[in-house]
């Protein structure tokens, strides 16, 4: 029988940052075992495992993990969906539970990225002594830097600039102030890779990577893992009162890809698929953006955070600059955004990110976020986007059980 309500029973993220002495299996094991302990269950209770490690997508992180923490013979889905890999792992487990194939499952995302540099492969041809057209563009040379850029900082810089061209009001300083908000938030998050308060002037003075994104406005490449145990509502109601009280309701779980629009194969359109995911999620949850107590959105670059205020409909269309200037996305505002510090300071171990942002929301809904607790938080939204593109949106609600 199909299950129609889904809950997070346990969830964990490791410290993000440099883990020179642990490999991806160590980090995944740490997060998975901690999530199981948080849930009060064991691997023997899991009916499905979905796991992602984008940089090692061919290696089968799910089975590698099982060989350390429990080879129980359950189906494993190794997932890869760019920066939305973690959200895709969660979504996969949710689909398995919803289908009625099992009543509990584990989702894990892990990455080791310290020192990886700028991500994004250049399209085009290999070097040769004689010009030889190859590839889908018939290119005689690599195209990175010759015909634009595929490097993430430059791609997302253009995403923010395009928004500025369309609606006005953006500037280098505005993007730096958005980044300063997140760096300030990170000082309250002991699991963040970088906990350093920075003024917007300091951020603007950092080395320029891709205008208007300086180094401090780019997500921090770091190591880390996150894991979540998901459960059907029916099964949850058979567990202890304490497990039921700490469980977090998944009111919406949505995954979208980018629909065709003019220009979307020139510069990736990260807007429409996010808007589509948000619209579906609000409808499924019966919740509007005005009901959200906090939002963790995919600020892979400061320029990205701005456009997602609009895409997630936290403001009227075209109103993202006014929304920021009003103070709404600050900790003390009406819709706090990225109180974890965001990817710019918390870090962005790619496959872990889409579970870690859900962990942050759960932490607040359970009232366990300590000094950075958003008081009385009852509902939150977690958003990730992976270029290519994939967008995951989850709406989560405090347990009423």
């Amino acid at each position: 029988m199909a299950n129609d309500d889904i809950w997070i029973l346990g969830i964990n993220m490791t410290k993000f940052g440099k883990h020179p002495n642990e490999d991806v299996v160590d980090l995944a094991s740490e997060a998975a075992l901690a999530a199981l302990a948080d849930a009060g269950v064991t691997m023997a209770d899991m009916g499905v495992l979905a796991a992602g490690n984008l940089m090692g997508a061919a290696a089968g992180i799910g089975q590698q993990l099982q060989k350390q923490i429990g080879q129980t013979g359950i189906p494993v889905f190794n997932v890869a969906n760019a920066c939305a890999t973690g959200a895709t792992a969660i979504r996969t487990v949710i689909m398995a539970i919803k289908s009625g194939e099992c009543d509990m499952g584990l989702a894990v995302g892990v990455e080791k990225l310290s020192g990886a540099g700028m991500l994004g492969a250049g399209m085009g041809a290999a070097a040769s002594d004689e010009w030889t057209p190859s590839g889908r563009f018939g290119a005689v040379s690599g195209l990175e830097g010759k015909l634009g850029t595929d490097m993430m900082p430059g791609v997302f810089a253009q995403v923010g600039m395009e928004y500025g061209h369309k609606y006005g009001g953006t500037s280098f300083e505005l993007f730096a102030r958005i980044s300063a908000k997140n760096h300030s938030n990170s000082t309250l998050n002991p699991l963040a890779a970088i906990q350093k308060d920075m003024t917007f002037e300091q951020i603007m003075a950092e080395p320029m990577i891709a205008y208007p994104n300086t180094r401090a406005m780019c997500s921090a490449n770091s190591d880390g893992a996150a894991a979540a145990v998901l459960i059907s509502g029916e099964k949850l109601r058979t567990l202890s009162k304490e497990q039921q009280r700490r469980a977090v309701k998944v009111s919406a779980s949505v995954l979208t890809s980018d629909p065709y629009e003019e220009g979307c194969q020139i510069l990736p359109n990260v807007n429409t698929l996010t808007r589509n995911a948000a619209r579906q999620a609000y409808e499924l949850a019966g919740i509007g953006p005005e009901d959200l107590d906090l939002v963790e959105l995919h600020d892979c670059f400061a320029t990205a955070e701005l456009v997602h205020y609009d895409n997630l409909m936290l403001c009227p269309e075209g109103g993202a600059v006014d929304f920021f200037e009003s103070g709404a996305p600050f900790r003390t505002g009406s819709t706090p955004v990225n109180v974890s510090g965001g990817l710019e300071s918390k870090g962005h171990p790619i496959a872990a990110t889409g579970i870690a942002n859900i962990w942050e929301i759960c932490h607040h809904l359970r009232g366990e976020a300590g000094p950075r607790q958003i008081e009385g938080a009852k509902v939150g939204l977690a958003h990730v986007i992976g270029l290519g593109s994939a967008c995951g949106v989850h709406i989560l609600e405090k347990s009423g059980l």
Partner: protein
Amino acid sequence: MADQIPLVDYLVLGDSPHLVANECTNCGARYFDRRNACASCSGLTFTKADIVTDGEVRAFTIVTPWMPGTAPYVPAVIDCGGTSVRANIVNTEPDDQHVTLGMKVRLTTFPIGTDTAGTEAVGYGFEPAN
């Protein structure tokens, strides 16, 4: 003149260099790469469409290269009469005083190197129109 070859196959050289797109005969969607089908309507037939060489900067960034001593470059999205084109902004200073959103630009071509057979590869970019 030495033999020339375009950097990409959708750049047409000659007296009036321009870009040419694969246009879906069903829905009109335009692409610069080799196609299997149309991403918009799944149509299977395409025709060649010349792209106008004047445009407007819709988005840009200024990338600071890793290699010391290499100049910054300016990736941009150019709106060429309703068709988006990807290129660098060239022939102007790579800073936010000289490159601005909405600025008018035009296509230009330039050599990017010569191979061992003496063939010159030619790339394209967009330069300020004024």
